[in-house]
């Protein structure tokens, strides 16, 4: 049914877009919570969980008791759920989606008999074809000879039937837990010297970096928590300019932060974690170029960024705009993973641009009645005489941005050479008459 049809039938219908990412997150949380009922819990589809409760049910007073307990707790959470308990995974799946309940041990065939064939996890075409033959329920399939069924509907149907009845094994495999990048060390005696903390950190880093290497990842952010004897916690956090798992180079970045920590009466525990990691493929030492200039630069960016802030170590990137101020982006060097843009295809020569740009500064023409461009002007408390002026190059504001600096409208840019030396990039705003200096040429 389309939404328009549904609205026509029920005008008061409330609709909301599906938030699949959020739903998956909630399902993952429920999957963790369901661990209280069984050791092996896995997500099944986008809206189901499957748990292997073999040998667990008696702890909750039997299978029916377990199911009642589950529903009571889910109700308290405000979740509506259907559940079923059966001998096999296929049977539980079928029953949970068609009524729910408990199928006792050894009772699988009888319990499934009344369910529609679509409950067997077969594709809709097979289910429809079975329906046309009058085989609407699972019970209709059970007495039939298997060979003609397999010949007519393929091995998938027989496999699903066998899985539901337990003739084919179908274990529950829980998802592997995501790797946790955190290590800790507890000390028998409190320590207070910086060298001792660094020695402990080196041990933690060795373990953490080994774990990072195992999962082919590199850290981008590391947090060292120092637990003091008086139960206070000091934290040292560093960022890295690029993913890294080299203990010696990371330890050097911690030195400054550890130096500033107040050890109080002593530190008796260290915890090192990497909250932010990125994939980092293993590298062969032999294939590296002998000069480690890239590493040295990344280390320098990390060191500068950790003291000054990573938003203060910048690179220039070209941008798609004719507006001088927006023709380039200044991006943090640590997050600039894009390779250098390809060289531009040769086209018509572009008008020259100044080497240095600054926010527009007022320039006062010496005589207001001058033609364009003026014969001289005052700028930065200097009187400049115009020797040559090249231009104008007209640049119109981008109307789709409301830029306060461009409220004065069109700009006519001139390259002005002065008798005093400076070669300036000057513009005139014809819509709000005035002259401004915005840059300086080589």
């Amino acid at each position, binding site marked *: 049914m389309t939404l328009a049809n549904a609205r026509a039938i029920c005008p008061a219908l409330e609709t909301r877009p599906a938030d699949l990412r959020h739903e998956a997150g909630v399902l993952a949380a429920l999957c963790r919570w369901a661990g209280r009922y069984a050791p092996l819990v896995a997500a099944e589809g986008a809206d189901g969980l499957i748990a292997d409760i073999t040998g667990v049910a008696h702890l909750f007073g039997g299978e029916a008791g377990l199911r009642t307990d589950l529903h009571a707790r889910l109700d308290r959470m405000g979740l509506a759920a259907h559940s079923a308990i059966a001998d096999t995974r296929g049977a539980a799946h079928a029953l949970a989606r068609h009524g729910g309940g408990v199928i006792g041990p050894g009772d699988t065939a009888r319990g499934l008999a009344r369910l529609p064939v679509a409950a067997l996890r077969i594709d809709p075409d097979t289910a429809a074809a079975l329906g046309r033959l009058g085989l609407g329920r699972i019970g209709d399939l059970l007495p039939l000879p298997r060979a003609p069924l397999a010949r007519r509907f393929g091995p998938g149907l027989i496999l699903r039937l066998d899985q539901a009845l337990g003739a084919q094994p179908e274990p529950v495999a829980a998802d592997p837990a995501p790797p946790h990048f955190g290590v800790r060390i507890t000390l028998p005696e409190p320590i207070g010297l910086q060298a001792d903390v660094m020695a402990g950190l080196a041990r933690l880093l060795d373990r953490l970096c080994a774990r990072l290497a195992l999962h082919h990842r590199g850290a981008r952010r590391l947090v060292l928590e120092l637990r003091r004897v008086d139960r206070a916690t000091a934290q040292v956090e560093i960022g890295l300019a690029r993913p890294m798992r080299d203990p010696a180079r990371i330890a050097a970045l911690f030195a400054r932060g550890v130096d500033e920590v107040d050890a109080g009466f002593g530190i008796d525990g260290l915890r090192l974690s990497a909250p932010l990691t990125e994939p980092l493929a293993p590298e062969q030492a032999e294939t590296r170029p002998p000069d480690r*200039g890239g590493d*040295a*630069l990344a*280390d*320098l*960016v990390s*060191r*500068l960024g950790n*003291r*000054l802030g990573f938003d*203060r*170590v*910048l*690179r*220039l*990137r*070209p941008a798609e705009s004719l507006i*001088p101020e927006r*023709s*380039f982006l*200044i991006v943090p*060097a640590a997050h600039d993973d894009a390779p*250098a843009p390809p060289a531009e295809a040769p086209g018509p020569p*572009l008008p*020259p*641009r*100044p*080497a*240095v*740009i*600054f*926010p527009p500064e007022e320039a006062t023409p010496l005589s207001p009645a001058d033609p364009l461009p003026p014969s001289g002007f005052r700028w930065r408390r200097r009187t400049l005489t115009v*020797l*040559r*002026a*090249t231009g104008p190059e007209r640049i119109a504001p981008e109307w789709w941005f409301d830029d306060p600096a461009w409220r004065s409208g069109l700009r006519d840019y001139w*390259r002005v*050479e*002065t*008798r*005093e*030396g*400076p*070669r300036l990039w000057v513009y005139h705003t014809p819509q709000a008459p005035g002259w401004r200096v915005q*840059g*300086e*040429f*080589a």
Partner: protein
Amino acid sequence: MLLKPLRHRPAADSPLALAHARVHEAGGHGRRIFALFQAARHPGPLIWILPAHQPERPMPRGLPEGVADRLHLVTPRGGTDLLWATEEALRARAAGLVIAEPAEALSLTAGRRLQLAAEAGRTTGLLLIREGAGSNATETRWSCAPRPRLPRPGLPHPGAGPDSTLHLWSLNKNKSGTFGDWTVDWNGASAAFHLVSEAGERCEPQGAAG
């Protein structure tokens, strides 16, 4: 051989080349252009350290060829952070040239520390200073100013002739050489430049001069 030279200083191949692994200073209105000229002539990553409050920024399309891709800007907040960042960058052996624009006058201690860092890291540094704000520890000090191409009597009107790309770069202090003034014709696009003779006419075609 009584005295061993304190450090090996290869002879500069050009009067405008900066001695390697030393810190130099440049002042005057054209100091940033001088820095860009040196940046184009140094291979490897470039680090330009300038105070966050300073409004001037390099504009990629106006920079010499290949400089924008190699350029890293560092914008520390205070004078101490700026000197620290400069020292770290000089010591790191990562950059081909480190350019810094200290806002305050440099003390002799600061200048000497930067000089030691440059020697330890085998990196060349260039400090862009305000007038009289340099330190005595510098290897060379340059005074840079853009020059106009002044009209000469032969030309029909003052605005005729090509645009000027002349610079007057004078070496005012040099610990291991002589002083000098050079008028350089550099258009700011490539590493190539043209030393202009005193008379000034030789670099132009005969017709334009006549």
